[in-house]
């Protein structure tokens, strides 16, 4: 699904129960023009900036990383992490490319539970 279509479906679903999720009001809350948001939803305009996507994600109750990925963007904090050790992270990400979710989760640092 395209970014714009996804945003429109998520917004429309919320609007079924709450009129504050009109294009105009969502646009106002995230700080863009309603016409601009409307064009984004219709796919006539490229996805907005990372900051706007993050505000949209918050307003629509969506995951910012998912929306950024749908928009073909990588969040600034991830870029910073990769740029600090580019070769290591490039190799790591390539190695993880085909791994199933549960295997990738094994790489994620767990909060250690102890004895209490």
């Amino acid at each position, binding site marked *: 699904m395209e970014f714009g279509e996804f945003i429109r479906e998520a917004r429309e679903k919320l609007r079924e129960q*709450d009129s504050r999720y009109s294009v105009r009001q969502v646009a106002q809350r995230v700080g863009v023009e309603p016409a601009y948001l409307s064009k984004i939803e219709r796919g006539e305009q490229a996805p907005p900036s990372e900051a706007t996507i993050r505000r949209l994600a918050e307003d629509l109750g969506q995951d910012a990383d998912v929306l950024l990925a749908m928009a073909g963007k990588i969040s600034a904090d991830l870029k910073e992490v990769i740029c600090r050790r580019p070769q290591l992270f490039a190799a790591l990400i390539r190695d993880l490319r085909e791994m199933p979710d549960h295997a990738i*989760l094994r790489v994620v640092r*767990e909060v250690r539970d102890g*004895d209490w």
Partner: protein
Amino acid sequence: MVSMERSGLVFRFPEVHAEAVLGVNFQRTLRIPDDHREYPLPPGLGRFPLDHVDDHAGRVPERWLQHGGVLLPMYQAEAMWIAFEAREYPFAVKVAAGKVNAVTGGAWDRELHARPQDYVVTPRQPWLDGFAVKKGVIRQFVAMPLGRGYTAEEQLTGEAEHGGLQICVYPMKAAVYERLRRPRMHSINASMVDACCAEIRSEMGLAPGGLMRQEVYDDPHGLKAWETAASGRCFVHIVNSAEYERITGRKPPTKPPTAEAYTRAGLPWFSYYDENAQALDGAPSLAGLDSVAALGWKKGEQPLEDNGPVAPQKVVPLGPVQGKVREGEF
């Protein structure tokens, strides 16, 4: 598994269901006046920073390393609320402060109990601001140093042993979830914790503060709905802000505004109501605790500055339909 993402805890149970993911974060907030009046919900002022205790092994007490988990900084008499970020997948969550159950006042254990219900259910329960003292009313979580006798743990057990917050999460059984969601599969969804003579320590515990209108909702699914074989838990240590800087080398967040300054600035308070959910009765043992101000008065101390009453003018109603966003900036 439990991981840390963006200053929050994420409980994932991929072995149960791909959607069984719950975020839990700890929100900075105003301390409401501790004056026997009932107040609406204060705002969220951003998340407390979290650190793995293991990352500061040489600078934290040995006991913390035994507990594992994370640490966060709070100023004395600062308040917090716990935000549950659940999408559709339901979870049963046990919350304790100093190993005193915040819903029942009972001692900590790893089982779920129905009578009385000793856990909250997400996403029905979007947040928890304090100890459930009576139906529809909680006493705000307020940080106090262990050893001075104010925390719920010290008042109930007479000991300042654990402090901090303890959280244990149980996902719903996958089969129960699938039955539950089948009727509403029409749309897609994104993706996806001897008192008076004891040493006063830099470790903090949570004490009962002012009264707030907040309902702790009942479990509409029943005990059998929960996958008790797959739980994730975390000990959240609370350290005073000065000690936090020594441990981590980073400055803690600035002090939150007072309730009086926030209200004078015309900023919103909140209320939350779910007409489809039943509120639990509060716990008699928690209702019998002294609030920080009351105990301070008995001890001839003044533990709370800026405790004058406020009159919130702007109260924004929230609910399952209106949305659950309580985070704000000041």
